[in-house]
């Protein structure tokens, strides 16, 4: 109840800032372009695909690459949205409103987190709608689409958790944004190190930490509880770190 109250305020404030609208508009524009270029490509190779037995369908050729590139674009954008979560409250002194209210720290953190996640989920929702428009000219693999959307949503939630934590560390939103971006990018590319990746992208400890690795499994349509659990654990870890960080502020 209190969590939703805080989340609602967060979401409201996001929409009252031009940043949120700008981000949504730009994202929509870029993804629409990517979407169209994927369709274009599909139309070019369609005659050849028709000749192959068990060729990839429109979902695999258009939707999965679209989600893949969306993840990279969002890697750049999410830090800009999460950077102000706590740092701005700290800077403008509004954090003390929450701290002196009869609300516990986990409610504050989870509330803020749900607020930003609710906003971020608008993006996969729009991408989902975009993909559904393909139904006008053909059929879709709904399982693959759902797995892709789930992967995108989990990844956004993981991005937001990192962003939230980074925002508790500093009063400067830009510092929070840069460090969030740094951490996310590192987690993205961590398995590029010296050919440690096996043929299927697994098999090394570094690959296990790579967010891209777990995301791409889902993007291929493989629903593995290990990957889902990885994302959930990742999110919980950063939320707990955020709570501990804010608690530590009060202690002498």
């Amino acid at each position, binding site marked *: 109840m*209190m969590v939703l109250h*805080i989340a609602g*305020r967060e979401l*409201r404030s996001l929409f*009252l800032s031009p940043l949120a609208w700008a981000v949504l508009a730009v994202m929509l524009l870029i993804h629409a372009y990517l979407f169209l270029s994927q369709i274009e490509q599909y139309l070019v190779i369609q005659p050849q695909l028709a000749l192959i037995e068990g060729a990839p369908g429109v979902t695999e050729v258009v939707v999965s690459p679209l989600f893949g590139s969306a993840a990279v674009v969002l890697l750049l954008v999410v830090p800009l949205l999460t950077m102000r979560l706590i740092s701005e409250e700290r800077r403008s*002194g509004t954090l*003390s409103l929450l701290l002196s*209210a009869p609300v516990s720290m986990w409610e504050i953190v989870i509330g803020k987190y749900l607020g930003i996640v609710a906003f971020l989920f608008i993006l996969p929702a729009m991408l989902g709608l975009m993909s559904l428009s393909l139904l006008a000219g053909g059929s879709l693999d709904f399982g693959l689409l759902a797995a892709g959307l789930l992967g995108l949503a989990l990844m956004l939630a993981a991005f937001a958790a990192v962003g939230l934590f980074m925002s508790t560390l500093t009063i400067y939103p830009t510092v929070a944004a840069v460090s969030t971006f740094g951490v996310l990018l590192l987690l993205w590319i961590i398995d590029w190190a010296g050919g440690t990746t096996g043929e299927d992208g697994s098999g090394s400890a570094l690959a296990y930490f790579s967010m891209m690795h777990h995301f791409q499994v889902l993007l291929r349509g493989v629903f593995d509880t290990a990957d889902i659990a990885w994302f959930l654990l990742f999110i919980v870890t950063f939320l707990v770190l955020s709570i501990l960080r804010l608690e530590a502020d009060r202690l*002498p």
Partner: protein
Amino acid sequence: MNSDLLIQVENLSRYYGSRAAVDDISFELRRGEVLGFLGPNGAGKSTTMQVISGNLAPSEGRVVINGIDILEQPRQAKAALGFLPEQPPLYRELTVDEYLRYCAGLNRIPRSRISQAMESAREHCGLADVGARLIGNLSKGYQQRVGIAQAIIHSPDVVILDEPTVGLDPIQIREIRHLIRTLGEQHSVILSTHILPEVQATCDRVQIISQGRLVLSDTIEGLERRMQGSSLTAAFRQQVEPADLTDLPGVMEVEMLPDRRLQLHHVVDQNPAEALVERSVAQGWGLYELVPERMSLEDVFVDITCADRLQEGEP
């Protein structure tokens, strides 16, 4: 447990690293009292307020709000507490009504009573006609009032205001002081400030804090007694020599000031003002100004802190 005892602070200390911002403070506050917390900047006022409001945890000691320890049961204790920090915690992008509604919810006011609580908070703080305006567009005085409205929306037993009149113009200051006075009727108020007249205008009791320690805890009357100085300044139309006044009862020393003014230092309990006026009339000196020298807060402050140190020096 006395139910009228709303705040008990016991041996409270708070360190930043090895520096003690607040050092072993104890005090109590009863229902219906307005307590002024005086001290120069950096004396530990804000830290004390933040500890009492639960924004900071104490290094040592205990804070009990309405019989509930704020560390053991923070949620229950904070429900009885309204806090306005030095910088009002306002979301500039919200309207006054949206903001107050949010605060009402944060303080767990049941949905059915939120409108009523908002109404009364707005009325109390003179915000009736700015409800639909953006907080960021309001003047500093109004923003301060919104801050106070936020602190009293759940009609808490204790209201803590940290320097509520800083940066306001004189009219706004008067209004806020009046508001604090009205609050004191129903709530207990702790008011931190470094402005003496503010305390005199609004508080029942005053505490002076210096370098993290409580150096004085007294009623307003007690403070005013302390502030009575021991000198008078008199201005005459005629030239009067210091020697003419030295024999007045209680006068210890007379000093010559420019413009035919004289300063009389006297024994604290023996004010020679009456005798001086009588003599002036009798001699036709033309006394036209008689000002008792009052000690400023700084003087009282220096006085107290010095006395403190002397006592410590001499066991």
